[in-house]
């Protein structure tokens, strides 16, 4: 399996070349084009331990996610009957990042997942109050295993290697390595800073590991557009 990311950083598109028998899984709606020799099958985003319980759990989580907003709960499996390519792209303007997973855990914000291949497990992690406060949705997508992962951003992506701690604006958080811990705090400046700095609450990542930020924030786009809409 080979892949290429083109048209980055603004309008990145992913091409995955499959040999017969190989499979790549993509977020629903992300397909741009494919060869006809690639069969497409829609599946519930339930991971590979497809026991009844985990399917049920995935369905409940999926419905919840649907209600809260965020990514869809179905994924498309592209399997090559004959060698061919599939092209995938996210809906918004942004970059695509490839990560070769070797057993470690990655946590992705809502909407950051694009595709994966190989022995990669996706699991919804309830973010609890922390995630709710961070306004990134109630869930993070936990990704682990051995294989390829592609994730996406709104804007460019900056990777920061944290050693100790680092603060990230909640709307700019794309994902982080599982050995970092996430907590929510004020950006500083006391009560006035909390209310008037425009930064509000931020995510603090502590430990040692990598965090990915996006250079633009969807909430800011929406906040800018909303007052200009015709009434």
């Amino acid at each position, binding site marked *: 399996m080979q892949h290429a990311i*083109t*048209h980055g950083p*603004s*309008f*990145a598109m992913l091409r995955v070349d499959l040999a017969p028998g190989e499979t790549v899984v993509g977020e629903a709606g992300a397909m*741009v084009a494919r060869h006809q020799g690639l069969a497409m099958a*829609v599946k519930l985003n339930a991971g590979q331990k497809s026991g009844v319980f985990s399917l049920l759990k995935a369905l409940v989580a999926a419905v919840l996610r649907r209600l809260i907003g965020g990514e869809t709960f*179905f994924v498309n499996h592209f399997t090559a009957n004959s060698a061919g390519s599939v092209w995938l*792209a996210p*809906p918004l303007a942004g970059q695509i990042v490839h990560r070769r997973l070797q057993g470690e855990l990655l946590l992705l914000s809502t909407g950051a997942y694009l595709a994966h291949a190989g022995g990669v497990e996706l699991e919804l992690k309830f973010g609890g109050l922390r995630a709710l406060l961070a306004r990134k949705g109630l869930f993070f997508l936990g990704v682990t295993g051995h294989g390829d992962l592609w994730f996406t951003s709104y804007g460019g992506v900056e990777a920061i290697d944290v050693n100790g701690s680092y603060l990230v604006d909640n709307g700019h958080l794309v994902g982080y390595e599982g050995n970092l811990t996430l907590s929510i705090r004020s950006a500083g400046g006391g009560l006035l800073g909390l209310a008037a700095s425009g930064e509000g609450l931020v995510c603090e990542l502590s430990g040692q590991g990598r965090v990915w930020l996006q250079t633009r924030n969807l909430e800011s786009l929406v906040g800018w557009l909303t007052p200009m809409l015709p009434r």
Partner: protein
Amino acid sequence: MHVEILYRPAHALARVHLAPHESITAESGAMVGMSPNLAMQTQSGGLLSGVKRWFGGESFFRNTFTAPAERGELLLAHALCGDMRVLELTQAGFLLQSSAFIAATPNVSVQTELGGLKSFFAGTGLFVLRATAPSPGMLLLGAFGGVEELYCDGNLVIDTGHLVAWDATLDYSLGKSSSGWLLSFLSGEGLVCHFRGQGRIWIQSRSAAAYGREVASLLPPRRR
């Protein structure tokens, strides 16, 4: 005529250098700037073709810019963020998604075509454009996002929202992305275009409809 494309790929701008007495026909609203010696003429090409264009999601009118007995310059751009491409007309011509058309040399006939059921459900609208020319000509296209040229060697399946243009030598039909309607709906892919034969297809790396849906889902409802 010589065309340079600047500010690629995100905010492409076409600078068209016109030789004396040369002209170019552009989609209305595409003009960004021009040298003062150019003459602009607006035409609908007859009421019927104007109406057809209007139904096809294009503007009713097109403008022809003509250089006098000296050289002139015209700047053209697309409405959305993205790349532009210049295509040299071939014998068979091209089919294009209606919003991709920006300009063409005057010898190029750009006809709105009823794709029939073939494109009835396509996000690209009920109509496609067929560009043909009896002599060498040029077509200027605009896209949302980056443009990629794919070669269809036998068959390719393309999401309708990502289609820009294709060689008219290709056969195409609209279809479901999966085996059933329910699965097609769940897959989020909706309708796709099935291409058969040999030829080039230009795709764009973003779909305007998908982008719009994503942002619109976060906007407050319109108040009446």
